[in-house]
């Protein structure tokens, strides 16, 4: 099978499974909405103050929701030894990783489409900067969190307390991505700075870790 076909087969499987259960999406949406509520109770934001803090809250909520979903993403494959079957299959493991990451990316994008309006309502958000840049920023920052998250979720599958390890490894490594995402979002919301530098940084982060993930995934999948 050609690489494209392999990738499509993996991706189709992921999307179909999620479409049938909708576990990841539902839990992520509910969880991030809860965070939106809890933080708005904690900070009691006004329209002016919420512009400066909402960027941080949105990305922290998304990061937590992503960790919840990713912990389940590979767990599914351990039932009935599906992961071993995937290891034996004459397919490129890197494509399995890529399909998993793309599927998760699509789920989180769907989550963002649902959750962002919730944040806009609760925090009275009205961006003063160039709001269209959010359409570029959201995918860039989401991919940065997802690509490492998918990789380390597969890695923590091979540890004793897998659900605990993912955030412990993912958060320190994601600090630059999170910083970039928060700074760019705040820049767009307040309209004071330009988000361009941060978006370029996120692009670089995405490229570096996508390449590293594709190259090293086989090592993790077949670690002995």
């Amino acid at each position, binding site marked *: 099978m050609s690489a494209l076909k392999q990738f499509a087969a993996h991706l189709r499987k992921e999307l179909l499974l999620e479409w049938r259960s909708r576990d990841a999406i539902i839990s992520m949406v509910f969880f991030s909405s809860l965070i939106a509520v809890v933080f708005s109770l904690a900070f009691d934001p006004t329209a002016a103050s919420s512009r400066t803090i909402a960027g941080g809250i949105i990305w922290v909520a998304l990061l937590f929701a992503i960790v919840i979903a990713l912990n389940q993403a590979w767990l599914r494959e351990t039932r009935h030894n599906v992961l071993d079957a995937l290891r034996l299959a004459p397919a490129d493991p890197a494509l399995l990783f890529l399909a998993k990451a793309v599927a998760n990316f699509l789920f989180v994008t769907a989550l963002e489409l649902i959750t962002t309006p919730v944040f806009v309502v609760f925090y009275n958000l009205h961006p003063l900067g160039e709001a269209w840049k959010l359409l570029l920023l959201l995918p860039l920052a989401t991919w940065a969190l997802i690509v490492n998250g998918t990789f380390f979720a597969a890695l923590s599958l*091979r540890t004793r307390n897998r659900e*605990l*390890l993912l955030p412990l490894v993912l958060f*320190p490594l994601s600090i*630059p991505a999170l910083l*970039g995402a928060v700074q760019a979002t705040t820049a767009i919301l307040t309209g004071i700075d330009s988000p361009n530098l*941060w978006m370029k940084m996120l692009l670089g982060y995405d490229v*570096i870790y996508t390449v590293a993930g594709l190259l*090293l995934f086989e090592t993790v999948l077949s*670690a002995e």
Partner: protein
Amino acid sequence: MKKLFYPWLAVTVALAIYGFMQAWYIAPTEATMGNIQRIFYYHFAAGNLLCLFFFANFVASIWYLVVRRSNPERAQKLDAFALANAEMGTIFCATVLIQGPLWARPVWGIWWTWDERLTSTLVLFLIYVAYLMVRRFAIAGQTQTLAAVVAIFGFLDVPIVYMSIRWWRTQHPSPVIFGGPNSGLDPRIWTAAFWNLGAWLAWGILLVGVRYYGLRREQAQQQRKAVAQVLMETAR
């Protein structure tokens, strides 16, 4: 290798004593900060050396992944070397993070600030603590490969962390050591800083060596256990 321990220990102690004398009695007292500035001699050493040990961990981890199938014996050595270096780097990193606030409180008036170097050092520390966590939590037999992968991911993050936090903010005093001939630094400060750098480098290499030796013994012990178990099962 084992024979080197005592001579190297002697060199380390001698360097440490000489560095201490340089830093406390020969280097002049700084005009505005007073004696509190002398912590710099240790801060400078630890802050530079941590990069060296993390870099050694990075190289050993890549090398481990390359030879783990073709040359298992060398791979075991590289893994022990990588772990010893990561631990040493983390110790230096923690030292820097403790010394910094001790100096900053009297000089800046605050213990901590989210400045460029402080933040990047803290993030670096967190990344390598995560690496050590992975080593602790991984299932036996897969630890080494997984840890090597995490080490590579972690080290790739270093330049990104550094650049992103640099764009974010900066308050740390800019480097005066390499600030050019007119940075106004007394040459005796320069001498003291480098003697201490040498002393702590020797100390770090000593600890890495001891730790490496201990890890190799642990590996040998585990191998003997595994062999004994196989023999028991075949005898049954």
